[in-house]
């Protein structure tokens, strides 16, 4: 009992996700934002810093300005305006004074921070023969605070595992910002840990995390809980990464985010042929819409995918709208949960 209480006490003392990000802001902004009421802090999704413009927060319900005293201000005149000095210091802190070490990240437009948070960066883009080379004169940041939501996979898992205890080839279909990656991450964690309720032992999961969103790796080390039997190739192109994992890591499931290009589908087919299970996501709001895209149409044609999970936000972010059997193309009778 007392041990449990200790653990709970530890949990309370632990820094909130927002605090982890605040440590990367210059002292004046850190001070302002740490004065925010706890209720606001808990719902902050984004901190937006744009040179010469007001400091803003992206909240679950819309956005708001931040005043110099550290309150959410409703009118523009009260807002704190970000100056050159702030931007320079934020640049130094998020890059650890080493922009030269982040050329690859700048090319992608974001840096992953300790804790798995991400900061998007804008400025003047330098190109070389049409390819983005670097970002210079950095002037804008968007700190996106990531919060792990554990347990979202629980209600879909029973539909994704066969009575014999085998995982089905699964594709999550969802429009942007409907909790696709969150669900994917939680599925990976559960498969990796094992699911005692379903008599499912943990299996090796290989993750190709091209956009560093699933595992939120910081210097190659996953910052999110993705389970004990999970291997991550961070920032690796999907097609190449799937082949690498297949050859070297002996995964039972290969998971990736946002399949769409022809080469991704070709690699996916290799994985299917190797007898390895597939877990992936695609952008889209319905199966009909997906069938219009040539690369994905092929995937339907070979009838390889056994389960399609459709997500939406009809009952809030992450609503499971439907689960469809890939062989018969019929709904499994899950509606809006």
């Amino acid at each position, binding site marked *: 009992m007392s041990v449990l209480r200790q653990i709970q006490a530890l949990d309370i003392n632990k820094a909130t996700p927002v605090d982890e990000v605040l440590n990367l802001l210059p002292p004046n902004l850190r001070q302002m934002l740490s004065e925010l009421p706890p209720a606001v802090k808990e719902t902050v999704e984004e901190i937006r810093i744009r040179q010469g413009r007001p400091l803003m927060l992206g909240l679950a319900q819309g956005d708001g300005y931040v005043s110099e005293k550290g309150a959410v201000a409703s009118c523009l005149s009260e807002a704190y305006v970000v100056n050159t000095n702030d931007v*320079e210091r934020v640049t130094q802190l998020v890059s650890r004074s080493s922009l030269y070490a982040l050329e690859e990240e700048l090319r992608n437009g974001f840096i992953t921070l300790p804790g798995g948070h991400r900061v998007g960066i804008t400025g003047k883009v330098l190109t070389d023969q049409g390819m983005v080379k670097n970002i210079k004169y950095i002037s804008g940041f968007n700190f996106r605070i990531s919060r792990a939501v554990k347990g979202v996979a629980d209600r879909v898992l029973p539909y994704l595992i066969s009575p014999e205890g085998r995982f089905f080839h699964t594709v999550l279909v969802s429009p942007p910002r409907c909790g696709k990656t969150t669900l994917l991450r939680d599925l990976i964690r559960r498969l990796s840990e094992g699911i005692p309720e379903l008599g499912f032992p943990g299996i090796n999961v290989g993750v190709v995390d091209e956009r560093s969103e699933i595992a939120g790796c910081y210097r190659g080390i996953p910052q999110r809980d993705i389970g004990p039997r999970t291997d991550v190739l961070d920032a690796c192109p999907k097609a190449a990464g799937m082949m690498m994992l297949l050859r070297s890591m002996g995964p039972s499931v290969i998971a990736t985010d946002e399949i769409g290009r022809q080469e991704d589908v070709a690699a996916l087919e290799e994985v299917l042929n190797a007898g390895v299970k597939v877990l992936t996501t695609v952008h889209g709001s319905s199966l009909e819409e997906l069938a219009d895209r040539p690369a994905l149409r092929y995937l339907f044609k070979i009838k390889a995918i056994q389960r399609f999970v459709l997500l939406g936000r009809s009952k809030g972010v992450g609503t499971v709208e439907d689960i469809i059997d890939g062989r018969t193309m019929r709904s499994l009778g899950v509606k809006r949960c």
Partner: protein
Amino acid sequence: MLKFLGAAAVVFSCTLIGMTVASSYSRRPGEIRSLLNALQMLETEVSYGATPLPEALTHVAERCDPRVAPLFSRTGEELMTMRGITAREAWETALNQYYPKSALTRADRGILLELGNSLGVSDREDQVKHLVLAKEQLKLEQAKAEEASLKNTKVYNYLGFLGGLTIVLILI
């Protein structure tokens, strides 16, 4: 007898002053050489390893001449605190502590300050350019320092001793 002792004390102290001045001339080329070596290491860390600046500075401090190491280790430590200072500020703080104890001149300090302005704020190519520029300028200073050292070390050594003698002769 007392007069003789006093005269010896004057000559002795003047010689010491002369030697101190001379040693600052002879120390400077060596220190600039160590700085050049350290900057070369930093350049390697930045261009080949793409090591983040705080770690790169710590690595350099571990391997370079102990006489110049404090400049690099202190800058690294300042940056590791993550208290919101820029690399330039950290470098300046470290330089202001290091400079008074070193044999460097204001010109050398100017070159290092200038380098601080660009530390960590640009891409790899640009960083290397700035490091190379600082090294080139330091090499010029080193040549000057060596020349001055050859000329002045002996001069000040003799000057101290002879100056002491002169004072004694005048007083007697």
